[in-house]
C-alpha cells in the first residue's frame, strides 16, 4: 500500500479482479503476486468471491484457474467509477 493503510475489503476484491482480468485466466499464484497478497488470505477471498459470483473457478486436473464473471466485471467497473468519485472528493476508499 502506498499510504500504509490497510486495504478495504472492496479494494481487495477489486485488486484480485484486476489481477485476473489482466491475465484473462489466472492461477492463484499469479493473482497472489499481482494483487500483492499472502496465499492463505487470497484463497479465503477467492472462495468468498466465488460464492458471491464475482469469479469462477476452473479446474483442469491439478491446475486451477480463475476467471472474472459478468458480475465481477460489473463490480470492477462500478468500483473504478467509485474510485474516480472518491478521488474527486479527496476521500480515501
Amino acid at each position, binding site marked *: 500500500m502506498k499510504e500504509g493503510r490497510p486495504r478495504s475489503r472492496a479494494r481487495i476484491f477489486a485488486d484480485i479482479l484486476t489481477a485476473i482480468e489482466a491475465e484473462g485466466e489466472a492461477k492463484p499464484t499469479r493473482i497472489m503476486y499481482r494483487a500483492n497478497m499472502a496465499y492463505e488470505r487470497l484463497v479465503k477471498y477467492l472462495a468468498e468471491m466465488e460464492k458471491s459470483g464475482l469469479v469462477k473457478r476452473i479446474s483442469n486436473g491439478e491446475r486451477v484457474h480463475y476467471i472474472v464473471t459478468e458480475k465481477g466485471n460489473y463490480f470492477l467497473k462500478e468500483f473504478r467509477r*467509485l474510485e474516480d468519485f*472518491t478521488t474527486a472528493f479527496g476521500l*480515501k476508499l
Partner: protein
Amino acid sequence: MFQTLQITEAILSGTTFIIAFLVAYRALKGYRIAFNINLLFLGAGFILLGIFFLLSSLSFLGVIPRGYPYQHRYLYDASLYLIQFAAYLLIMLAYVIQPRFEETAVLIGTVLLSYFLLNAVIVILLAITAGSVMIEYRRRQTASTALVLSSFALLFIIHLLDLFLIFIPHILILSTIYTVTFELLSFTLLFIAIERPATKGEQSS
C-alpha cells in the same frame, strides 16, 4: 420582472437539487459497494443539501408559501439554514473521520495557533507597547522616541498583516521574507535609538 426572477431562481435551485441528489446517489451507491462510512456521510450530507435546494425551488415557485406573518417566514428560513448546517456538518464528518484527519487537524491547529491566536496576542501586546511609546513620543518629541515608536509601529503592522496573509497563500512565502526584512528594520531602528548619542534636550529627566 419579479415573477421571471422567481422562476429563474426556482430553475437554478431545481437544477442544483438534481445535481445534489445525483452526487448523493453516487456516494450512497459507493457506500453499498465499499461499506465506506465516509461515503455514507457524504451521501447523507448531499441528500440534505438536495432537500434544501428542493424546498428553496418550491418556495420560489410558490408551491410552499413562505407566508406571513414575518415570524413564520423567519422560522422557515431558519429551518432551511438548519438543513444546510446539518448537511455541511455531515459532509465535514466525511472528511473528519478519514485517517489523515489527525494530520490535517494538527496542521490546522498549528496554523490557527501560530497565525491567529499567538499572532493576535502579539498584535495586542505590540499595540499596547506602540501606544505607550506614542504617548511618550508626544510628551518628549525626541528622535529616540520617534525611532522606538517607528520600530514598534513597524512590528505591529507586520504582525497585523500576518493575520490576514494566511488568506492569500501565494503571498505567504513572500511574507516570510518581508517579515524578516521588516523585523530586522524595526530592530535596527531600536538599535539606533539606544545606541545613538542623546542630544542635550533628550537627556532623561
